[in-house]
């Protein structure tokens, strides 16, 4: 039957099957991925080979570029940290408690996924400008400073933490908590010694996802950042600046650094998820 099918069936299938369509489906999927993702993405790496190692190194370590890494990684990390803290509280409250408006709040968590980043960017800028709704009460500037970058990255990262934690919190078995209570644990002890260790891998995964997303974020940040070189310029913006100056090789060199950082994060997240699954499976 399907064993006599096309190339993919003969080369890749591990088990005999009666279902049709493997060659067509896999063939189409592979063609599509190659055309849209793999071939264009390989262009980034091939383009950097037109630079010598010294040129590449110089491009990605000029003070302006290094300042942008510091801002991008620093603000992303600080945003992931705040999201880890409040994301845990939001997820906990949504899973454990009843309160009026809970469903609306739950649905609103996904707003940063649904709201276009440019819209979020101009809204946050307006709110935190010096005459803005919140900005006018603050003794320091937020919009057009690195602090503004951080605000925007908190906004886009929140759903990652909450949505990763929610299912895990729902699965924490009540019997464990009851057992802890029967053995005389206080509520805080139960939380810190029983519940938290169970959800910690998910908390870490969610924060890592938020961090990874923040590294590449562009739309929501550029409006509020002010984009001052050396101060509030993020790395993705530098790529665009180089492109606008027709410095394709320079733009590509910085892009390679960002891509490598993304791939490292992707790997770290996969390992975290595997660890989280193991932890959950063991319980």
């Amino acid at each position, binding site marked *: 039957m399907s064993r006599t099918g096309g190339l993919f069936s003969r080369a890749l299938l591990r*088990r005999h*099957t009666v*279902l*049709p*369509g*493997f060659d067509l*489906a*896999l063939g*189409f*999927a592979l063609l*599509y991925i190659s055309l*849209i*993702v793999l071939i264009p993405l390989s*262009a*980034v790496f091939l*383009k950097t080979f037109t630079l010598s190692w010294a040129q590449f190194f110089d491009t990605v370590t000029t003070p302006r570029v290094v300042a942008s890494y510091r801002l991008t990684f620093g603000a992303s990390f600080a945003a992931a940290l705040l999201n880890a803290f*409040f994301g845990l*509280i*939001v997820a*906990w*409250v*949504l899973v454990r408690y009843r309160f009026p408006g809970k*469903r609306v*709040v739950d*649905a*609103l*968590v996904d707003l*940063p*996924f*649904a*709201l*276009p*980043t*440019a*819209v979020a960017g*101009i*809204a946050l800028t*307006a*709110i935190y400008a010096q005459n803005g709704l*919140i900005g006018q009460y603050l003794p320091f500037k937020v919009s057009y400073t690195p602090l503004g970058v951080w605000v925007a990255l*908190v906004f886009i990262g929140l759903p990652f933490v909450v949505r990763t934690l929610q299912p895990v919190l729902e699965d924490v078995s009540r019997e464990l908590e*009851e057992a802890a*209570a029967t053995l005389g644990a206080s*509520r805080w002890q139960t939380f810190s010694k029983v519940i938290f260790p169970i959800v910690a891998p998910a908390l870490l995964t969610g924060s890592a996802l938020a961090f990874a*997303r923040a*590294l*590449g974020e*562009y*739309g929501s940040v550029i409006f509020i950042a002010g984009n001052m070189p050396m101060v509030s310029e993020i790395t993705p913006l530098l*790529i*665009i600046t180089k*492109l606008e100056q*027709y410095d*394709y090789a320079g*733009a*590509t060199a910085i892009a390679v650094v960002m*891509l490598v950082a*993304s*791939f490292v994060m*992707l790997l770290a997240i996969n390992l975290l998820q595997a660890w989280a699954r193991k932890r959950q499976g063991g319980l």
Partner: protein
Amino acid sequence: MATTEPAWVRWTLIGAALAFMTLFLFVPLVTVFYEALKKGWDVYVAAIVEPDALSAVKLTLIAAGISVPLNLAFGVAAAWAITKFDFRGKNLLLTLIDLPFSVSPVIAGLIYVLVFGLQGWFGEWMRDHDLKIIFALPGIVLATVFVTFPFIARELIPLMQAQGIEQEEAARVLGAGGWQIFWRVTLPNIKWALLYGVILCNARAMGEFGAVSVVSGHIRGQTNTLPLHIEIVYNEYQFAAAFAVASLLASLALVTLLLKYVIEQRVKGQQRQASDRGG
């Protein structure tokens, strides 16, 4: 026995969660509509019916109208291969599907400039043949396809994995052909997850900024999508107009969240059914 927190702890946590959500999510959302209508209804309407804004609406609809069906076809094909068959390299394929999520949108735009731009691989050949991809519609579609391509596949794969292949095999044994199996057996089982994926994909397609910004060239009335139009108007200090156009996209986001909530309930129902069947 202490298996829940004292009331004051509960309400403090609820208060903290709500304060955080209000500050970072609710206030920005309300601000969009408030700033849009601050200068009155006339300014609002004028900003939206202006020719450049209308052509941006049109371009956004066209770009999403092409990219979403393409990604739908890909999502279904990839999910069919991954969930109905056991083959070598499956995990690699799964990782590749997720790849666009971890690539900065700016880099998503850059890669097409490197391939199709004037200095790119096919740049000269395309100029000689009078073809334009970068700074034109095809480039915008390509960038949109790239950033939105995991959404539908990612919704379908877990559900179809849970549903297994018994029903399709039964249909096959009873003599159904491939397409018949898909239309009559598989599709009815996955329709809500499919719709859910399409809605998420569409929301991102219409709102994508970074990737499209790199390949669009920002030609007014020609290659500006809605998010790019918002940027241009905003940088000209026409804040009310920028927020008016932004309110269209914010409304789309709200509709997306509402549909998402409704469909989520149905998908949960289907997943329960699937796991009941699977035992």
